[in-house]
């Protein structure tokens, strides 16, 4: 623990204030370092006192995250972080509660809690570090591993079809869904900031490299040279343009996406326009289906729809109950219901 902040003096928080005294124990070259650094940079800018942050995690490499944050935090059990965080947020709505999870933690053992957090739209910020592999148990395939992935438990290649975390979140009704790559720090920082500002559940998938067990899983997206053609950055109100020359785009052909080249009888006006605020999640879901090798991988904010957060609705219920019945007290509680007197 760092020394206590002097609360008498207004203290301008910096990245340093969010670094705990624990040695970071991820493998050299792990994408988690970048996410940690970006979060530590972001938090001081949010205008929230440090003591009001809580980081909750489950089990896995990603779940060591809270130990490295000089905030309140809990390293809990496998897959359950969203459930624990939900209880914390619901009982303490004023806190900024973050969940850091991985593809195994969130989508395999914790799949149920993950989808229900999305469904409720409870004010959690959930960062999923997706390296498409089980790292802490030393290299087994995960629910996001591509078919054919050879691991210690799939020596002949995986036959499981992978989840798209973004599609799963959208299918569960998530109001904020975004994706970033660990190597594009500026964009990662932007996406995290957008998540922090969202009311309700904000879900960010970070495509993140595991240099030990699944190196280069996102090679095309990671490298500055290939990223412009391998990825498409979603921007609200703008057409879906990508490519090094910014001359390629996505348009809708019937219900199917199609990559077209701008200029060859096509203009930007023919392309799909991104609308992250659409009340319907259809467009966001459509975009979540775009994947390599036929399509560029969408990065950025798929959906940012403003809807009442679960904890707000819950507080309203309590206020309504007090307005209707009056604030309860102990005597009233005990003597409520059907009573009689024996003399």
């Amino acid at each position, binding site marked *: *623990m760092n020394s*206590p*902040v002097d*609360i008498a003096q207004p203290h301008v928080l910096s990245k340093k204030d969010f670094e*705990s005294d*624990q040695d970071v124990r991820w493998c050299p070259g792990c994408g988690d370092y970048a996410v940690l650094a970006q979060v530590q940079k972001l938090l001081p800018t949010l205008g929230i*006192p*440090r*003591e009001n*942050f*809580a980081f*909750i995690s489950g*089990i896995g490499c990603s779940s060591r995250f*809270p*130990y490295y*944050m*000089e*905030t*309140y*935090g*809990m*390293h*809990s*059990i496998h897959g*359950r972080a969203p*459930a*624990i965080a*939900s*209880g*914390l*947020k*619901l*009982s*303490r709505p*004023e806190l900024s509660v973050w969940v850091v999870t991985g593809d195994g933690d969130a989508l395999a053992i914790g799949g*149920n*809690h993950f989808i*229900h957090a999305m469904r409720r739209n409870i004010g959690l910020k959930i960062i999923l570090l997706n390296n498409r592999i089980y790292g802490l148990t030393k290299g087994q395939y995960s629910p996001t591993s591509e078919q054919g992935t050879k691991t210690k438990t799939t020596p002949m290649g995986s036959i499981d079809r992978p989840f798209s975390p973004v599609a799963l979140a959208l299918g569960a009704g998530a109001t904020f869904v975004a994706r970033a790559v660990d190597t594009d720090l500026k964009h990662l920082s932007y996406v995290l900031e957008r998540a922090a500002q969202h009311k309700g559940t904000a879900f960010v998938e970070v495509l993140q490299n595991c240099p030990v067990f699944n190196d280069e899983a996102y090679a095309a997206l990671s490298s500055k040279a290939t990223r412009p053609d391998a990825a498409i950055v979603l921007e609200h109100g703008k057409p879906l343009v990508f490519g090094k020359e910014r001359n390629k785009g996505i348009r809708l052909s019937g219900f199917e996406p199609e990559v077209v080249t701008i200029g060859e009888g096509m203009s930007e006006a023919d392309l799909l326009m991104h609308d992250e605020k659409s009340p319907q999640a259809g467009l966001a879901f459509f975009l979540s289906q775009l994947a390599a090798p036929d399509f560029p991988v969408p990065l950025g904010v798929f959906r940012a729809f403003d809807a009442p957060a679960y904890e707000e609705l*819950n507080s309203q*219920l*309590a206020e*309504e*109950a*007090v307005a*209707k*019945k009056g*604030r*309860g*007290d*102990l*005597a009233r*509680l*005990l*003597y409520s219901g*059907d*009573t*009689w*007197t*024996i*003399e």
Partner: protein
Amino acid sequence: MQTTDGNLAKSRHVEELDSVVIRFVGDSGDGMQLTGAEFSKAVAKAGHDFSTYPDYPSEIRAPTGTLFGVSGYQIQFSSRPVFTSGDAPDVLVAMNPAALKTNLSDVKRGGIIIANTGAFVDSNLVKAGYQKNPLEDGSLDGYQLFKIDIGEFTASALRDSGLSKKEVGRCKNYFALGVMLCLYSRPLEKEIAEIREKFAKKPHFAAANITALRAGYAYAESTEMFAITYQMRESAVLPGRYRSITGNAATALGFAAASELSGVPLFIGSYPITPATDILQELAALKHYKVTTFQAEDEIAGICSAIGAAYGGSLALTTTSGPGMALKTEALGLAVMLELPLVVVNVQRGGPSTGLPTKVEQSDLLQAVYGRNGECPVPVIASHSPSDCFDCALEAARIAVKYMTPVILLTDGGIGNAAEPWLIPDVASLPKLQVNYRTEAEGFQAYARDENLARAWVRPGTPGMEHRIGGLEKDFFSGDISHDPLNHQRMVEVRAAKVAGIDIPPAKIDGPESGDLLIVGWGSTYGSIAQAREMAEAAGKSVAHVHLRHLNPMPANLGGILARYKTVLVPELNLGQLSRLLRERYLLEVLPLSKVQGKPFKVSEIYDRILELC
């Protein structure tokens, strides 16, 4: 029926009684639970003590007329203290042949059977497996049989009510209730007021039910169907304000009260499961208190959300029954490691697996005491009656916050659903519940301990005390991750010492301080044991009874007590789980008395065993 005047009078007269046991049985859609509950309240308001036992199938509406669809509600009421719902009914109200068939063997010889003749038609007789109509073939000659076409009388009373045939059918339980109120000389006015309140939003149903109730009463009175009506003796019940309460309602109230007493908000995270769901439902109606209810996506999320709330500074609760308890196991271990206050209520039911969801059993004791990975001590307490659930909830909350530990509170489907009158306690008489969150950052170490070996409770949002906790082993003081071998040994030992050192009251003995036989019980067997012991004592036997509320740790004086009797008998609704614990802890032989039939002990079953032993 224990009458004071054994002569059956030819002319109609009123007879005084000490106690009576009535069982209402019918299809699960016949409203038997409601009828029984209403009747209980009616007799309670007359100053009688009572105890009930609802017995219902796990199907919500089983096919009508079938043996497995029979739902029953038994009540014993008395002018003396009532310990149980009674061994054998004096009166059986049977709404159909299946109900008669499945319950007749329990009825006292010579008891009253009130049969709803309208339902004794060929199709129902076949479904119940009767070759001939038992109401006509003389097979009930040993009983006082009263045949009433409840359905037909109810229908004719409600001919002009404008209700559909189906709706009229739903009123027949009030006709039956009217008959019973007449038999026991209870006034109708209070019941009518009850119905008006209950159906306040549906006044036409209220009117119909009141008509059915009056019709039943009038029928019994005017036809002089009963040669005798009964008047209960004046009651010895303590004066004061009462309410009828089930164990689940008392549990809910107890935790809401703990919140009020401590000023700490209550959070319950639970997943619906029979027979525990009522606790979540009761608390969901208390949003005007500092109560947050969260119906989680599964049992695991139930306990995990509660852990999150406990971390946030709430009094945290999760409620479940056996199978759900199994699912919560890993998270319970986390709570032990985190050393956060949390109460887990297990309203036990028949197991293993899905088992007998609506039936009573006490077979989760060893699970509660031992059922986790690692050395994982958790305090365990058990309530012995519906109203005792209130006191046990306060006690569980006290231990949880004082020692910063999860606590398991065991109740069961018997007391969870059963009702009894509860003398409402004075607010001033309730124990204080002191909670101090630490806010002093100077010198703070997350796992430094106080004199009770409890660590400090620090709410997120407290400046300067940001720290991390988790399921990995932690350093003895700082709480940072530690894989140091000696530190682990020290942590395992201190967690065990903390739970072993919890301050609990000494065990109390009912009966002689030493002697031939000691009966040790826990949980819902209390009533049957207490009454059997009283009967044995009256018969001159040297029998004592200790009923354990605290099962882990056990009272410090228990070992000494056990040694003072020649024989120790342990009746349990399992195959001897407390017996194992007692043998293991006190190295002494005890005799189990086991019953696993989804039913509570009859008083006679324990009494007979006492007579065999001394």
